[in-house]
């Protein structure tokens, strides 16, 4: 449903991206998309998905326990899982990575279970462990990366392409139409990861 013609892949100009806006840093994603000339709308409740053609979904950073709970309480869980299952491109940052993972190493909760990765929550420790660095991202070269109480990818299936590693830990990956980063591209001026999502997922 979301696979448009090749020309619309070249840029995000014709796309409409839904950004999950239950809690956390969703407005930063909308600003990043705006700077790329891509339209976006907020998803706060089920009705926000009605009568919309949606070309991609962004799951922002925040607290995965909060967003995961609200997904269920506000009846968004089923509709979003269905969208992703049917091929709508999805991009999760930080908490969004945790929501998309099929397993979480240190948390019994399970959320959208869309990607064959095991996430490790708060993998770099508490806020004192948060850090900013620059690292290599496959196809994009060196990009700035901000990690806030971030997870990493502790394990991944063979069909998952690891796009970036920091200190030996996988921090970005892609599986088909799903992209995840443990860091927050939306908190930096760099738009290359958002562009990557619009062009490759």
């Amino acid at each position: 449903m979301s696979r448009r013609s090749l020309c619309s892949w070249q840029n995000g100009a014709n796309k409409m991206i839904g950004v999950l806006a239950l809690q956390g840093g969703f407005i930063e994603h909308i600003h990043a998309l705006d700077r790329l000339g891509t339209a976006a709308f907020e998803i706060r409740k089920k009705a926000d998905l009605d009568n919309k053609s949606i070309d991609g979904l962004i799951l922002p950073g925040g607290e995965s326990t909060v967003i995961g709970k609200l997904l269920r309480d506000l009846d968004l869980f089923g509709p979003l899982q269905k969208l992703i299952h049917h091929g709508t491109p999805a991009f999760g940052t930080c908490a969004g990575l945790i929501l998309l993972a099929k397993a979480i190493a240190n948390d019994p909760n399970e959320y959208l279970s869309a990607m064959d990765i095991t996430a490790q929550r708060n993998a770099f420790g508490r806020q004192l462990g948060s850090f900013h660095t620059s690292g290599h991202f496959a196809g994009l070269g060196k990009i700035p990366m901000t990690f806030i109480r971030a997870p990493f990818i502790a394990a991944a299936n063979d069909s998952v392409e690891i796009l970036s590693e920091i200190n030996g830990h996988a921090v970005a990956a892609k599986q088909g139409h799903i992209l995840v980063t443990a860091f927050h591209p939306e908190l930096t001026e760099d738009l290359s990861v958002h562009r990557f999502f619009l062009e490759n997922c």
Partner: protein
Amino acid sequence: MNDRYELNKNLAQMLKGGVIMDVTNPDQARIAEKAGACAVMALERIPADIRAAGGVSRMSDPKMIKEIQIAVSIPVMAKVRIGHFAEAQILQAVEIDYIDESEVLSPADDKYHIDKMKFSVPFVCGAKDLGEALRRIAEGASMIRTKGEPGTGDIVQAVRHMRMISQQIRRLQNQREDELFHAAKELQVPYELVKYVHDYGKLPVVNFAAGGIATPADAALMMQLGAEGVFVGSGIFKSGDPGRRAEAIVKAVTNFNNAKLLASLSEDLGDAMVGINEQEIALLMAERGK
């Protein structure tokens, strides 16, 4: 500004649209996390009880804070007295995620706030108006909250502070650039911060509402007035059914413009905290630390 300060502002950005709940033990912390709190504030007594008990109120026992850190996976915050940088050093040593330099506790210094730039952990501070907010930011606060009267269940002061800050921001936005130097003098804050507010029409850090929030409607009111999230202190664990009320307030913050949902969230919550009206209070905590 260094990396650390940016990272600390970034954590506050990730708390936006969320509810930070006061808790006094691991059980309450777990109830708060389960109800959808985006962070918990660990303290020995909630503000309503601090107000009732009287006496000097201080930083919590680090052992209790550590137990709460083990009990939940969300960020854990804790309060220090205004100006008490040694308490802040202790909280940094136990790797707290955010320090609230708070008027709820008895002030340790009646003149100077903590030099928060000296710390690696982030600070949130209260503000009644734009001058206070920008002075705290100049000292290194990476998040601001209103100073609504704690432990009262009365929203009037939080509303007053939020409106005041918003009005003063709009006034600065409308001023000519050559008037900003004088505005900085009047507000008693650095010119660079005044210029930022003039240019962007907002504070350079995240701004939450705090003090007196007791119902989903209170939370929605503060969000519609421009708060980016809310702190709920006594309102939850002084009410009849804390878990249920906490969940309702979390949902109200996410859908603060959806009156139909707010109506259903407001049903059957049990008793709200009794509260005290502003005029009935002898001690105005918001007047501590300007």
